[in-house]
Structure formats: C-alpha cells, structure tokens
C-alpha cells in the first residue's frame, strides 16, 4: 500500500468535496431564499404567445443597438397598452425583437398590432373634445339613483347626469395640472439662457387648464352628448371640418373599441388627409378626441429627442431637434399655429394613430430646436422622448414568427421532455451500473450533483438574467446527460487502464487523473466552443439550446474536478474498491486479467514496471 505520506499527492479530496457541498448548499439556499425554486419556463412550455419581429431598414446603419432598444421599449408599451401584464420584450441578436406574452389568446391581433410600422406625425389640432368614461368613475350613474347626498339630482336623468359629471371632474382637471400630461404641455424654443423659457410652461398650463374648464363648463350647459351609457362628452372646442364631422361624432374614445377604430382609420389615412384621433392615454378617466389637420412634420425629421431636467424650472422637459428639412417645416407650422386660438394653436404628436401629446405653441420655432415643457415627471418625459425618438428611427418591423402555445400543450411538451429526460437518465444510470458496477455509483452520484447544480443555476438565472427554459433548452439539458457521463467514462477507463498495467487502485486513481483530465479538458473545450459559437451566432431557440449546452458543459468540468475525482480518491481507500470486490467494477476478473487474451493486451504495454519486477 502507498504510504500515508502520499496523501498530498492525492490532493485534498475532503476539501474539494466540502467545497462542492458548500457550493450546492449555497446555490440551493439562494434558490430557496430568493424564491426562484423552479426555472422560468419559456412560452413553448408555459403557454403563451411569442412574436418575433425583424427590423428592416433601407439604411443599414439604422439597425443599431440604441435604435433597437428604443424600438423594444415602444413595443413593450404597445403590448402593455393592450392590458397585458407580465409581457417581456427583448432585443434578440442584432435585428430582432421578441415579444413574449404569457397565456395570451388574441395572438394574431397582437402580432399585427406589433408589426405595424410606427408612424410618428406632427399634425395641427383643428378641434378637440374631452370624453369622460363615467362608468369608470367611482360614482357612476346606475348606483347613483339610490344615493342621496351630494348629487341626488345628478343621477336621476341623463341630462342632469351629464351636467353633473363634468363638474365633478372639472376641478380635478384644473386643480391637478400635473396629471394632465396630454393636455398640459407647452412647447417652447430651446433657449439656453432665456427667462422666457421658464415663463412658457406655467403660462400655457394655466391657459390650458382654463380652456379645459371652459370646455367643461360649456359641456355642462349642453347636456345632449351622452349617447352611450358610460360616456360623457364635453363640448367640442375648435372647428371640426365638415368632412370629418360624422366620424368625429361617432367615435367614442373612452372605449377600447372606439380607440381601436379611430387608430385603424387614422393609420389608414394618408399624410395629406385630415383625421380623427384619440389620445393614447386617459387623465382621470378623461380621454381627448381630436380632429387633426394633415401632417405638418413627419416624425422621421426628428434627429434627436431626449428628456432632461430643466436647470431653470427644475421640471422635466423633452428636448427635440429636427434635421434641416424638418426644421423648416416646423418653423412654418409653429409660425402659423401661434396665431391661432386654442385649441387650434396646438399640434398633436401622433404615434401609431394615437395622440401622445398635444402641446400648444407659444411662438414660432425657427432654429430646429424645441423644448416641450409642462407637467412632466421623469417617467412621462422619458416616455415622450422615446416616442419622439422612435419617430426618428427609420425602422420597419416584419413579423417573423408568431407562436401561440396553449398552457395545456406547453404542459404536455414539458411533461414529455421531463419523462424523456428521466428515462434517458435511468438508461444512463442502468448502463453505468451494469457496466461499471461500484464505479457506476460514483457516476450516478456525480450525475446527481450535476443535476442539482444545473437545476439551481437555471432557476437562479431565470430570476437574474431572465433565462427561460424552452423546449430546445430542455433537449440540451437531456443531451448533456450524455456529455457529463462521458467525462466519467473517460476517467474510469483511464483508471482501469492503469489497473491493467498492474498498478494498485490508489496509484491508479492518482495516475489516471492527469491524462483523463487532459482528455476531459480538451473534449469539453470543443463542446463548449460549439455551444459558445452557436450562442453568439444564432438566435432564439438555437440560442436557448446552446446556452444550456454551454452551461452543462461548464458544470460537467466543475463536477468532474470537484466531485468525481475527489470521490474516487476517497473511495480508492475503501476496502470494497481497493480489494477488487467483484461488484466494485475494478475486480481483476472483470478487467480480464485471467483471460487468455489478457496476455496479448498486456504484452502490448510498455515494460518498465514489468521489467523491474521480472
């Protein structure tokens, strides 16, 4: 037997094993602690809709990470605008955006909505009307009849109710200018040192507030406009062109359907058409319906838009710059608008057929630089800046793929994958045990460690970097069982080679390691290289697969180095293995020592030890 002094040559198996154990405990601990106990499932397993959109552009340079990030942000807003929660939007590769909507049903509509080209236009406002979604207000008409108190008469008749509601909301609109993002913005020239810049927001905000107040006051006087039960329309300010009149009257901006109709019509309209459009967002349940003139400035004329905190007013505002063409157009239109009465002195920033904002113009802006100020907070300012930036993106999006998977189908795919994985694992375990017997147990234990590490890392990565386990990734994990098992085979066969050469178990285990390690490193490197190349050169499903394969390859190394090898070293000291028990997988008989053919095998071996002994 090797002397006890050879122990350092075995390395410190105990330390390595405790390290592995510590890593496992730590990972599982973090996993439980953070609550990410299962891997996040991809759309194809959990069910849901996944839309892949590809950016196209006549200008190749336009497809860059910055533009894609903005586009992705907009996509995300579009999805969330449809009331979907938990959707994820991510840029994939260089030119694709993947939108995942869990358990959504209206997949094809979503896809069409997402893929539509975003058109950003500046259109002068001709007329506007506020519409209140009364049904969303706490005290809506149905229940109000039984209510005594403050508004007893209000609910009794439609006419009275419509006179009451605007009053109820009018204070809100005027008293809280910060909430009226859509209406309360003012536009001014970007004056770096002008005291006038600070004067504009407040002036226009108050002007707007009063306009809204008068509008609603008038609405109170004209109690006719409440055709649908939940909607109360204020009076129209400005003049609706005759051609648009019927459409303007028909559209109800407080309902999703109404807005969709308006949006579709507005999107279909030519740039030279006058259109009816709804505000994209409501302010205290007040939607604004616009009649808009033909496009004055195209969104692609914007060269830059960003939100910043004004040093003068301490308020958030959005700066935008136009290219030379746009600057000329913008100077023209602002010059005209500034002469008009409200609301015709406003222009609407219309994205995808919805009005994002309608700042009023205080002066002709000639320099191609403008600032939209008003009642922004940081979020709304950056949102508007994004919207404006998007208009300057010369990107079109094509639907590449729409996949809808029902939760049942996803579940059955996952089940099938798991069953296949389990059976694959059992086959590998059985093969290892039959072939390697006692050593097979080492392999099984190593596979188990590997499985625990893989599971916990996948779960944690799901929480940390949004790694989602999809079907190809499950496949990758199952296939990786083979790769992991292969490393053990390489090591075990080396140990047995050493034994066949006549070494005892402990030196055999020790001496087999350097060569086995080399082989494992070289072959795992090739495997990892394949995974890495796939990861960086491909997208989507293939990427998920490559990621799993790469991860498991790395874990394979960790397991072999920190678990299998130390475990072997420790087991080599046990009598069961050391004495060559028939079930240890290291017995002389199993190694074919007594076999006549053993002679020819052995004689092919080098002589050194044999020579010395003979």
């Amino acid at each position: 037997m090797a002397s006890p002094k050879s122990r350092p040559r075995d390395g410190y198996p105990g330390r390595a094993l405790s390290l592995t154990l510590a890593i496992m405990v730590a990972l599982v601990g973090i996993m439980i602690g953070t609550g990410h106990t299962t891997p996040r499932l991809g759309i194809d397993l959990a069910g849901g809709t996944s839309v892949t959109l590809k950016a196209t552009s006549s200008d190749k340079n336009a497809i860059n990470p910055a533009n894609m990030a903005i586009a992705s942000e907009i996509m995300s807003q579009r999805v969330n605008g449809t009331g979907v929660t938990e959707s994820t939007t991510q840029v994939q590769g260089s030119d694709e955006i993947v939108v995942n909507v869990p358990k959504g049903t209206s997949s094809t509509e979503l896809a069409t909505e997402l893929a539509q080209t975003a058109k950003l236009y500046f259109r002068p406002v001709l007329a506007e009307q506020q519409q209140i979604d009364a049904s969303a207000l706490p005290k809506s008409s149905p229940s109000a009849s039984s209510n005594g108190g403050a508004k007893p008469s209000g609910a009794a008749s439609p006419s009275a109710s419509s006179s009451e509601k605007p009053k109820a909301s009018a204070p809100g609109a005027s008293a809280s200018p910060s909430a009226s993002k859509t209406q309360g913005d003012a536009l001014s020239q970007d004056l770096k040192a002008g005291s006038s810049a600070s004067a504009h927001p407040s002036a226009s905000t108050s002007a707007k507030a009063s306009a809204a107040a008068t509008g609603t006051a008038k609405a109170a006087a004209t109690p006719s406009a409440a055709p649908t039960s939940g909607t109360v329309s204020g009076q129209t300010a400005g003049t609706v062109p005759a051609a648009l009149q019927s459409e303007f009257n028909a559209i109800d901006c407080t309902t999703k359907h109404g807005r969709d109709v308006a949006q579709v019509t507005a999107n279909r309209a030519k740039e030279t058409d006058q259109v009816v459009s709804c505000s994209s967002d409501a302010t205290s349940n007040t939607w604004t319906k616009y009649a808009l003139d033909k496009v004055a400035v195209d969104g692609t004329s914007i060269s830059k838009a960003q939100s910043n905190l004004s040093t003068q007013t301490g308020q958030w505002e959005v700066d935008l710059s136009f290219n030379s063409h746009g600057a000329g157009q913008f100077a023209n239109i602002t010059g005209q608008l500034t002469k008009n009465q409200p609301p015709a002195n406003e222009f609407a920033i219309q994205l995808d057929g919805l009005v994002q904002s309608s700042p009023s113009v205080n002066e002709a802006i000639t320099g191609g630089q403008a600032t939209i100020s008003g009642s922004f907070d940081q979020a709304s300012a950056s949102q508007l800046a994004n919207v404006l930036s998007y208009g300057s993106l010369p990107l079109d999006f094509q639907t590449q793929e729409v996949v809808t998977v029902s939760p049942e189908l996803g579940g059955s795919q996952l089940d099938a994958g798991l069953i296949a994985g389990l059976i694959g694992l059992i086959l590998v375990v059985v093969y290892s045990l039959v072939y390697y017997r006692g050593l097979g147990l080492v392999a099984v234990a190593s596979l188990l460690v590997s499985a625990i590490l893989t599971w916990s890392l996948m779960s944690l990565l799901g929480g940390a970097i949004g790694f989602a386990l999809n079907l190809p990734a499950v496949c990758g994990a199952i296939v990786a069982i083979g790769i992991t098992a292969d490393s053990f085979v390489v090591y075990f066969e080396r140990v047995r080679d050493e034994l066949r050469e006549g070494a005892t178990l402990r030196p055999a285990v020790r001496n087999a390691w350097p060569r086995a390690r080399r082989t494992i490193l070289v072959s795992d490197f090739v495997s990892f290289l394949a995974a890495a190349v796939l990861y960086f050169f491909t997208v989507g499903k293939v990427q998920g697969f490559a990621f799993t394969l790469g991860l498991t390859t790395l874990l394979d190394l960790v397991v072999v180095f920190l678990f299998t090898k130390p475990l072997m070293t420790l087991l080599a000291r046990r009598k069961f293995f050391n004495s060559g028990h028939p079930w240890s997988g290291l017995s002389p008989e199993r190694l074919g020592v007594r076999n006549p053919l053993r002679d020819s095998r052995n004689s092919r071996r080098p002589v050194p030890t044999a020579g010395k002994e003979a």
Partner: protein
Amino acid sequence: MSRFGNIGHRLYTGEVSFDFVGRRRLWTIISGVILVAAILGLTVRGLNLGIEFKGGEIYTITKPGVTIAQAQKAANELTGDSAAIVQKANTSNGQEILVQISSTEKIDPTKGQDGLSKSLGLSTQQINTQSLSASWGHDISQKALEGLVVFMVLVTLYLAFAFEWRLAVGALVALLHDLVITVGVYALVGFEVTSGTVIGFLTILGYSLYDTVVVFDGLKSATNKLTKQNKLTYSDAANASLNSTLVRSINTSVLALLPVAALLFIGGGLLGAGVLNDISLALFVGLTAGAYSSICVATPMVAWLQEKRPEYIELARKVKQRRAAEAKAAAEGRTLDEETPQSEVSVPAPTGGPRNQPVNRSRSERRSTGRR
C-alpha cells in the same frame, strides 16, 4: 442492457478487436457509398423543408374528437385546394391535430383560425395559431451556417494548436462526413427539416468532435515518441491506440446515444411531431455517424496523412527492414533477443510520472504475464 454490457465486456477484454487503420480501403468504400448516396439524395430528392422555411401558418386544434379527415376537409374548404398538411400528434392531454397551410395560399391567420373554427364547430380558443414568415427558416439556417463556418475555423485552429494540423484535418473531415451523412439521411428518408432539425445538426458539431478528440488524445500520446523505435509504423501505432481506447469510445457513444434515444423514442413517441422529436432524430443519426467516423474515418485519415511525412516514411522503411530480418531469423529458427515483450509495443508509458510505487505482493498474482 445486458446486451450492451456484453458487447462492452468482450471489447473490454479484447475478445473483439479490429484492424481499423489497415482497412482504410473498406472504410473509404463504405463512407464513399454513403456519401454518394447522401449527396445524390440531396441533389435529386432535395430536403423536405418544413413550413418554417416556406412560410405559412400552423393551426393546432386541441379539441378531442376532431378527426384528421374533418380537419383536412375544413382546411380544404379554407384553401380551396388540398395543399394543407394535416397531421395528428399525441399529447399527454390526448390527441391534437396540426394543420399546416403554406403562405402561398395567402390565408390571413385570423381568417384561417375563424374559418377552421367555424367549419369544425369549435371556439377560436381551441385553435392555436403559429405563423411563420418564409424568411424565418431561411434566416435561422443562414445564421446557423455562419456559426458552422466560424466554429469549423476556430476548432480547426484549436485542434491544430492542441494536436497538430493533420489531426485537425482528420477531425474536420470526420465532422463534415457526419454532417453530410445526416443531411443526406434527411433527404433520402424525406424527414421534414424544421428549426429543431437545424438545432440537432448544430449539436452534432460538438458531439462528433467530442468523440474524435477523445480518440485523438489517445492517438497523440500513443505516437508521441514513435520515431525512437523501429517496430511499429505510424499506422500500426494508431491502430493499437484505437483498439485500446475502443471501449472508451463505444461507452461514450452509447452513453451519449441513450438520452437521445430516450428523447427520440419516448419523448417523440408521446408527443408525435414536435421539437423534441426533430432535435433528437437529427442527433441520433449524427451521433451514430459520429461514432463510426471518429474510429473509421478520422484516425485512418490521420494515419494516411502522417504516413506521408518523411520521418514516418523512414520509420515505415525501418520497420519493414526489421520485419524482414525477423522473418528471416524466424525462418532460420532463432529469435531476436529483445523481441519478446516489445514485439507489439504500441502505447508508450502512460504519463503521470514514473511508476515507481511499491508493488504489492498480493496484487502481483494478478499480473501473471509479468512474471512469466
């Protein structure tokens, strides 16, 4: 199971051994025939590209009780011809019907969903839609191809660095061999090529090379100091090394194939058509080809290349001389002194330092040959 074990055991004990390198011609013929068939299949039959490459919609009907005939009829009504492909797939929740309608039919997905649900009397909730642009499959294979080329360049460089260029060439040839065979099998059998298949193809890269690298690692150390002796040619040494690592190669291949087979037969069998099936089918074909090629293509190829090197030509000449001398000596009835233990030396002393550890007496009983 025991069957695998038996084969493994017989190989392990050396009962079964093959002259792999010497039968270069046989392998060339076998591989040649398969490759020609694969290439013919590719050019004549072409690949059966899935809808992901042609563009179109896949409608999945989850309602039980809908038969293929009904779905086909509904699809035909929708398209006005019978171009729609209707398939059945089994899931753990029962059966489901897949209807593929190519984009050339110009059926709007929403319309398709409505049409199918109406004629089958289902709600639209019971029909899932997957819509794919024609460029999607093209794009993904384009990217896969780029990845393939980059990987091949990188791995060739790496292998040339870790081993030497002749081994890198051998590995690359084996890899291409596997890929062509796999693609050829797809063309010949007419399996549908989907995105899953592409993933499967790409994984063959890593696996095929994994096997080859394991074999080459043994080969490298076996032929390390070959020129220092005159008993073995490069081919002899390569073959001996192959045989000594054969058990390992077969075990790694079998262990790699087991989970894939499970995926293919169990996952695929449960699910019918699906990503799992596509990936595992490509992998299964590719891995089988890979196991064959790492032994029968890569190493003979390397041996053939190496034998052209001046030092190995010289070695082959010396070995020939020596063997002639031995034959002569044998004919004269005497033996060469040092012949006994080294006549077949193939594998030089394993690395890991001199084995000067004390040899246990009890163990020496096992080492019968050493004492003889």
